[in-house]
């Protein structure tokens, strides 16, 4: 297996996540897509770590996983609070802020 195979998969994961955030309208799916982007980068870090034969990238992934968990915890709390207000998690319903 070449490093480029891993990089292609990582890039695909990142791209799927990115377009998921941009195109989907369900807030929960958007949060999932955010995670997908981070996981794409994690895969990339681990692949580079294996290529360079050092542990720095693999260790960095732990920090990234922790941050992703914290982010999604806050995100889910916000989505739940919004759901209580609006009875929906569709982002098209959240259009109250304007000039």
């Amino acid at each position: 297996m070449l490093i480029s195979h891993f990089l292609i998969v990582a890039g695909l994961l990142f791209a799927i996540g990115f377009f998921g955030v941009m195109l989907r309208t369900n807030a929960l799916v958007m949060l999932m897509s955010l995670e997908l982007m981070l996981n794409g980068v994690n895969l990339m870090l681990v692949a580079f770590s294996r290529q360079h034969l050092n542990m720095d990238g693999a260790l960095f992934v732990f920090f990234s996983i922790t941050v992703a968990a914290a982010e999604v915890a806050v995100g889910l709390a916000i989505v739940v609070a919004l759901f209580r207000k609006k009875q929906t998690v569709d982002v098209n319903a959240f259009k109250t802020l304007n000039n």
Partner: protein
Amino acid sequence: MPEEGITKFGKYAMDYSSLVSISDTHNWIALIPEISLCLIGLFLLLADVLIPPGGKPWLIRFGVGLNILLLGYLLFSKESASAEVLFGGMIDVTSLSQWFRGFFLITQLGIFWLAGNYFKNRALVRTEFYAVVNIVTAGMMLLAHSSSFVVLFVALETVTIGLYVLVAYDRNSEFSLESALKYLVLGGTNTAILLMGIALIYGAVGSVNDPLSFESVRAFLAENPDNLLAKMGTLALFASVAFKVGLVPFHIWIPDVYQGAPTPTTALLSIASKTVGFVLLFLFFGESGVFQPLASFLFPFVLWVTLISLIYGNVTALGYTNLKRLLGMSGVSHGGFLMIGVLVYMKMGELNWISGAILFYLMAYMIASLVVFGVMSILNFEKDEDQDLYDYNGLSEKRPFLAGALTIGVGSLAGIPPLVGFMAKFAFLVAAFQSKMYLLLGVALFAVVVSIFYYFKWIREAFYKDPIRGLSLDGETQEEPSFKGASYSDIGILIFLGILTILLGVFPMNLLSVWNFS
């Protein structure tokens, strides 16, 4: 392919003595301010559960008192930049990072002042706000000291996730929650892009010892300035910095998030989030910055982002009457203005005072923003997300002091001569002229002129009473608008900030040269 004779990861397996030599560099004294801020935050959270409701205002006062003590410690401790290697080279204490420590701590105290006013007459949990702001401030300070991409990432995310919580702080308001969701989704995307940039740079630098430290990345880039992976990574990192500063086209979150967030959080976003961006820019493009070897590659990107931000931020702000949106877009143009300094810095010409000018501008922006947000938080309109220009109609008649303070703050933001904002802008205009960036100079002048138009619309509303406004259609007078007054402590703080605005505007040159850390 593993080289011969090397087992998996064996080449870098550490022996006991190298571990000891790294742990010898753990000098916790160097991080006392950050550690104490985290402890204050955790103490507030814990004590909030334990003490009865009547004691909570005193708990908050106690916490703020501890913060003031910490500021005193920072001001009077003689600790300066140390050449010592700290935490295995992950933390770097310089006079610049010390400056940012003080800046963030003063900003934090200002935010606490705004929060105290904001929470009056609002049924919200209070102590948590102070706790989270403490931890966010600790994250920002740590960021200024980071010397490795690991610390940079962790510190930056501490700040960002704390800010998500603070934006969503008013859980009963759909506006606050909506803006928090928008901030979270866009901020999360930005985090992923930042991480992608770091991963690409790691992929390029790779096999050296400690590949994520700034030093090795800089050394690598100086040798291979044409590495494609590193270039892509650098662009990704610049995009994420531009998101923090709020530069066009990465500004899309600004108007909505500023509008929906509670007023003290909006102030924290506009002062601190912007400064965080410039901390990163100092780390990246400063004299010993990571990406200084790629400065000529990045220069055109930075230039165009700056020009577009200056124009777009001001022109968009013209159309807004909602004050928080207006301050947000004017913040975009302030970010563009500050980028002029960074551009000059990247060129590394004769202008050695430019880093001092950037710090001076950040300070001027902080003082002026605190005055303006201070007046907004004292007036404390019931609909926090809907503070309009026209709500200020007739302010000077009812509350002349607040109208005067507002004029000083807004005038300083606009850059009117005796005030500090003018000197800050003027320094950049001189710098742009001296480094022969005439297009930039022209656009900056245009930006100043346009910004005066919308800033003074606000002052006009405060000082002139529209005779038609008070009347309904059938000619009967409606209820007069009522404005809340300032308490004695508010008056004291506003007078102090106002005097500072004028004094620093008249005698700025000293600071410009004193703060030249490069």
